[in-house]
């Protein structure tokens, strides 16, 4: 009897937390279908009939799909760049000996300790002198220097790639470059995939870099575009909810497809941390 009570209590706790997590999204969904008149009356969870109108208002006021396009055009190249050069560096650090390796790796790990926000002004001026401000390159190129990916892939390569395998490949006449492409990238596919999905979410959600380096509205990414919705409250409430809902849908779709990799990626990070 006491056991049963405890179980009921535990489930109620978890369900309460789940409701807290999901309720804001439910409110968002319902409100996105309501008119301004509905949204200034008493609160109701019954859907309204204004979804299409809200969508129309939203797309008249902000170029929503342009933001999505810009986000995709910056996130995908960044993630590919990170995966390729990050894995390559991890391979170099893990399987080769060269002078200064330890020192270089230590410096690399130290860079993880300095929050990127601190260097924002310096990087802004560097982009300015490279004439890259207001281009998506400012969001793509830093992918080359993703320290966490190198750290993560180094662990992955250590676990997956046996030295004897590399020896065998070399005896079969594989060059080092071929070894990287055919052995490392193909055997570590799962690891590369997981870290890339994590990187995708991080870059997709970036706000501070996009809002700093990109000032033209046409080049803005989704997170910056959505943030601007906050400035026209009280006018088109339903449209704001619609924008927030669409932005959430995009990442929800991604989550439903990749949830095992995403939750697995968080978990693997904690094993090493």
């Amino acid at each position, binding site marked *: 009897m006491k056991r049963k009570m405890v179980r009921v209590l535990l489930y109620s706790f978890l369900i309460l937390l789940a409701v807290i997590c999901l309720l804001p999204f439910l409110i968002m969904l319902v409100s996105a279908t309501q008119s301004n008149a509905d949204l200034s009356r008493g609160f109701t969870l019954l859907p309204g009939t204004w979804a299409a109108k809200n969508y129309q208002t939203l797309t008249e006021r902000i170029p929503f799909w342009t933001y999505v396009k810009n986000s995709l055009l910056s996130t995908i190249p960044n993630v590919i760049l990170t995966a390729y050069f990050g894995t390559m*560096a991890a391979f170099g650090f893990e399987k080769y000996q060269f*002078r200064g390796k330890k020192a270089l790796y230590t410096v690399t790990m130290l860079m993880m300790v*300095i929050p990127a926000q601190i*260097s924002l002004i310096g990087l*802004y001026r*560097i982009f300015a002198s490279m004439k890259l401000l207001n281009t998506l390159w400012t969001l793509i190129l830093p992918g080359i220097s993703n320290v966490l990916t190198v750290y993560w892939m180094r662990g992955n390569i250590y676990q997956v790639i046996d030295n004897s395998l590399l020896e065998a490949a070399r005896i079969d006449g594989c060059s080092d470059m071929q070894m990287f492409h055919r052995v490392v990238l193909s055997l570590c596919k799962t690891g590369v995939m997981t870290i890339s999905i994590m990187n995708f979410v991080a870059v997709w959600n970036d*706000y501070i870099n996009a809002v700093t380096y990109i000032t033209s509205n046409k080049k803005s990414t989704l997170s910056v575009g959505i943030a601007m919705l*906050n400035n026209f409250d009280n006018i088109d409430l339903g449209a704001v909810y619609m924008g927030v809902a669409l932005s959430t849908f995009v990442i929800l779709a991604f989550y439903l497809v990749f949830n095992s990799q995403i939750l697995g990626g968080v978990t693997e990070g904690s094993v090493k941390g």
Partner: protein
Amino acid sequence: MTRKKVNFGILFVTPFLLGLLVFRLLPFLYTFVISFTNWNLMMGEKSFTGLDNYKRLLSDKNFYIALRNTVKIWAMNIVPRLGIALLCAVLFAQCRLRGKSFFKMVFYFPNLVNSATVAVLAAMIMGWQSGVVNRFLMQIGILEEPVYWLGQASSAQGIVAFVTWWMWFGYSAIMFTTGILNVPASYIEAAIVDGANAWQRFWRITFPLIRPTIAYVFLTTLIGGLQNFEIPRVITDGLGAPDKSLLTMVMQMHTIAFKSMQYGYGSAFAMGIFVVTAVFAAFSYRMINKKEE
């Protein structure tokens, strides 16, 4: 063969290291250098002014206000975050419950939605005249007049702290779950045989063994929390209103550098944030290690 190995190792790490140099190391050093100048886009000429910016920083009221707000908002969410995450983790790892993967997935979802979207949604829900919370409370008769939640210092900070908790407790819970799952089951079984109850099992076995995970999560949230920017920035459009209660350190640095275009002083402000972060991190790192002995 050995010689060939040497060359390729360097070749493989070079693109990454060059990237690290250009996008991480140089920007940091450059910011440091700029902090000793009066570089200001409005005035043109720039020259070295020694420690002037740092003197100004030390007497800048906004720096201390921002520091206090940032720490306060972090402190308000870290306790419930670690507490609830630990409880969830124990349930996920050590109890036979149905729907664990569903709960994990739901708890983690708020972390995936970008902060800007979350901030806009929070501002809408907590809004004044047409906010959902006010409309609901007025409907059921608790409120007569709508309350301007985001217009009062304490409730505005509370909202930001709550939203941060909401976005991050699931992440911490999943980290802790793995930490607990790595504790050998035989330890727990032995304790059960010895007649330890759930409370004792947690404090005597599980907690000491997942200490490193807790320390890791604590330190990373501290460092991350001190860089708090997105949510207050989007909610207040960079103003930090009401009464500067949502003014955070990174937000103030951003405003100085990119709204007032004072690169010199902004950089000194950034270095101030860096020092504060380093001091806090070192201090809590020592505390964590001391207790372990």
